[in-house]
C-alpha cells in the first residue's frame, strides 16, 4: 500500500487576480504587443547570432557526433523557436522546430544522417537572413521539405524496427 498525502491548495493568485482594478484582456493585449514591438529588432539580431553560433559549432562537429555534441544545437534551435514569434521569423521558427525533432531523435539513438543535419542548418540560416527575398510560398515549401525529411527519418526507424523483429 502506497501512502498518498493529499492537500487542497487554493492558489493565492486566484484571490489576487480578482482584486478590484487590474486590466482588461484587450488592454493587456495592446500593451504586450507594444512592448514586444520594441524588442523586434533585438530578437531578430539575437536569432541571427544564434544561427551564427550553430554554424561555428557545426564546423567542429565530430563525425559521427555523440548526443552531448548535438545538445547545444538543440538548445540553440529551441532559442530560435522562442524568438521567432516576435522577430517575424515564423518560417525560421518552424524550420528550427523541425531541426529540434531531428536532433532529439539523434540524441535518443536514431541513426545519424549528416545530410539531414546540414540541410536543416542551411535552411534555418537562410530563413533568418535579413536579405532573404523568398516569397512566403517558397518558404512554406522549404519548411514542408524539412518536415518531409523528419517524417522520412521516422519511417526509416519504423523499417529498422521491423527488420529487428
Amino acid at each position, binding site marked *: 500500500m*502506497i*501512502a*498518498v*498525502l*493529499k*492537500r*487542497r*491548495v487554493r*492558489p*493565492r*493568485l*486566484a484571490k*489576487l*487576480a*480578482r*482584486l*478590484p*482594478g*487590474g*486590466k*482588461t*484582456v*484587450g488592454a*493587456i*493585449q495592446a*500593451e*504586450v*504587443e*507594444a*512592448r*514586444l514591438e*520594441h*524588442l523586434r529588432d*533585438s*530578437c531578430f*539580431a*539575437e536569432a541571427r547570432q544564434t544561427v551564427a553560433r550553430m554554424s561555428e559549432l557545426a564546423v567542429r562537429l565530430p563525425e559521427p557526433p555523440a548526443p552531448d555534441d548535438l545538445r547545444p544545437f*538543440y*538548445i540553440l*534551435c*529551441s*532559442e530560435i*523557436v*522562442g*524568438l*521567432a*514569434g*516576435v522577430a517575424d521569423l*515564423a518560417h525560421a*521558427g518552424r524550420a*528550427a*522546430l523541425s531541426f*529540434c*525533432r531531428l536532433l*532529439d*531523435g539523434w540524441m*535518443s539513438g*536514431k541513426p545519424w544522417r549528416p545530410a539531414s543535419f546540414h540541410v536543416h542548418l542551411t535552411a534555418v540560416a537562410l530563413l533568418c537572413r535579413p536579405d532573404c527575398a523568398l516569397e512566403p510560398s517558397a518558404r512554406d515549401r522549404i519548411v514542408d521539405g524539412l518536415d518531409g525529411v523528419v517524417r522520412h527519418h521516422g519511417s526509416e526507424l519504423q523499417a529498422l524496427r521491423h527488420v529487428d523483429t
Partner: protein
Amino acid sequence: MPGAEFKLDKDDRINLEQATVMLLEVPKPGTDLLAQVFYGYGVRQPVRWHEVDKALAFAQSGEPLDLIVCDADVDGQAYDFIRRLRASDAEPNRFCPVIVLSGHTPRSQVARARDCGANFVVTKPLSPLVLLERIFWVCADRRTFVELPGYAGPDRRFQFVGPPRGATGRRSGDNATADEADGPNLSQDEIDDFMCSPPARAAS
C-alpha cells in the same frame, strides 16, 4: 478540446499588480521577452533568474510566490528545478503553480513536465494570449496537491487514459501503447488535454 472550451473575452479583467511572479528564463541580452509580457500583464516587478540553484534558493527563502514560469531550456535543469521545489519543505512555494514554456513538445516531453509536478505546458513561440489563458486556468485549477514516493505536485489523475506504461491493463478497452520518445510536436490543445482538464470560467 479544452483550448476550444475556455477562451478569454477582451472584456475579461485580471489584476496581477500584487502577484509575485518568478521567471526562470534563458539569458538573452536585449530580448527579455518573458519579462516584457509580464510587465504588459500588469505584474509590477517579476523576479527573474537564469540559474536553477539560485531560483530554488530564492523559492526556499520564504517570500511567497504566486506563479512560477519556467523555460524548459533554462540551465538544462528546468524539470529538475520543479521536482526539487515540489519535494522541498519550502511552504507555501512548493505548492506554487508552475507553467513550463517549451518549443519542442513531443508527448514524452509533456509527460516529463507533468511527472515532475508542472501545472501546465505552454508552447513556444510564446503567444501572450495563450499564456494569459493558462494563468486564468491556474486561478481556477481545483486539483489537489498530492505527495507520494517519487512524485509531489498537482493530482495527475484527472482523466482515464488507460493503464500505466508497460502494463497490460485489466479492462478489455485498455490500451497499453507506450509513448513514442520523439513523436510529433503536440499542439497546445493536445498538451492541455494531456496535462489538465479545463476549468470553469474564472474570469470576472
